[in-house]
């Protein structure tokens, strides 16, 4: 819904006397809102500049959007003419470097599920550490918790309601951010595989939601959230923990 937000923000900022231009990811939203200047791009939601580590492509996107500031009248919507480059040959299949536990888990046994979850995160840890060392960067940290704390906290939700580890935000937001950090931890670890190109968003999603114990835990937590009276917990269960595109995976 961010394209809706940038459309509205542009209207108000321009109305205050500052010229705006914007990238649009959902053309029908931009067509309806009619911000002063917008350039639609045919990229994945979450990737407004196209792809990572292609400075030339990113710069073409950026400059094309900025050049709309020189238009003489509007509202104006243009289309960026290039698709996002494919990062690898189509027949090369990315494989996660981590051999995840394959033994069958009784999803109704909370303790067994928690144990498998913890074991898996320990296995992921060395790849995550490698990724951070190589990139000198991590996006994990929004929850303010360490990975072992995140695993304990999320794991507890399978069959109980743990104490809120933060005093400054509600329990539901603590859970939301802990899940965000957990996913970032897995995705960054999985992308650390040496000697291959970066995995695509689709490959990472298919791997995480299809192959990991962590995803099974999140589906269990989702079911618990749906049974809560709290409005934000309900929202977590409905659309904020599991992407809509993966809602049938569990």
């Amino acid at each position, binding site marked *: 819904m961010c394209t809706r937000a940038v*459309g509205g923000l542009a209207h108000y900022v321009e109305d205050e006397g500052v010229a705006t231009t914007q990238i649009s990811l959902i053309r029908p939203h931009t067509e309806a*809102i009619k911000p*002063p200047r917008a350039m639609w791009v*045919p990229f994945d*939601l979450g990737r407004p500049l196209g792809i*990572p580590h292609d400075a030339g492509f990113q710069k073409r996107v950026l400059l094309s959007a900025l050049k709309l500031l020189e238009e003489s009248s509007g509202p104006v919507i243009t289309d960026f003419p290039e698709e996002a480059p494919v990062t690898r040959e189509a027949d090369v299949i990315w494989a996660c470097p981590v051999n995840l536990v394959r033994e069958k888990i009784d999803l109704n046994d909370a303790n067994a599920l928690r144990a498998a979850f913890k074991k898996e995160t320990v296995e992921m840890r060395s790849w995550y550490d490698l990724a951070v060392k190589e990139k000198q960067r991590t996006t994990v940290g929004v929850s303010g918790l360490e990975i072992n704390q995140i695993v304990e906290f999320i794991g507890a939700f399978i069959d109980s309601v743990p104490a809120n580890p933060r005093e*400054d*935000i509600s329990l539901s937001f603590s859970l939301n951010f802990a899940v965000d950090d957990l996913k970032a931890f897995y995705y960054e670890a999985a992308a650390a595989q040496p000697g291959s190109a970066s995995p695509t968003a689709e490959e990472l999603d298919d791997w995480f939601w299809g192959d990991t114990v962590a995803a099974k835990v999140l589906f269990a937590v989702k079911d618990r959230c749906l049974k809560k009276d709290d409005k934000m917990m309900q929202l977590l269960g409905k659309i904020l923990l599991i992407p809509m595109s993966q809602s049938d995976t569990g």
Partner: protein
Amino acid sequence: MARLENMPEPQRSHIANTKLPAFDSHPWVDGPALNMRRIAIVSTAGLHRRDDMPFTFEPGDNYRIIPGDTAADDLIMSHVSTNFDRSGFQQDWNVVLPLDRLHELLEEGHIGSVARFHYSFMGAMDPRDLEQSARKLAGLLKDDSVDGVLLVPV
């Protein structure tokens, strides 16, 4: 790809049925050539520095300031939605906040200067609820002599 017709259900219907604001006016501000402009980036990705408060729908608490010298490792994301890709941002922050690319455009003479501050909202909100913050933001941008704003969604 972010083409509505290619999105799987229920995401496609969720996006297609989103209530959108309709504005009666269409403000337009002219300005100098791009190579004379001072540019700021405003993201709606829920970005902020590691020590900042995350976004939690607290009324009136709608944006975070991103100083121009913020390091890539200091920038994290607390967007409430899980229905967009984050792996691009995890691998390269320029996919969402193209500050490195903006500075390259400056070095190449395409833009006049880069703002001292950039900003991020968390875009999972009706923009009409952001009006007051957006108008306040415009004042901050003018204080920084910004005359060109690039808004970037996720």
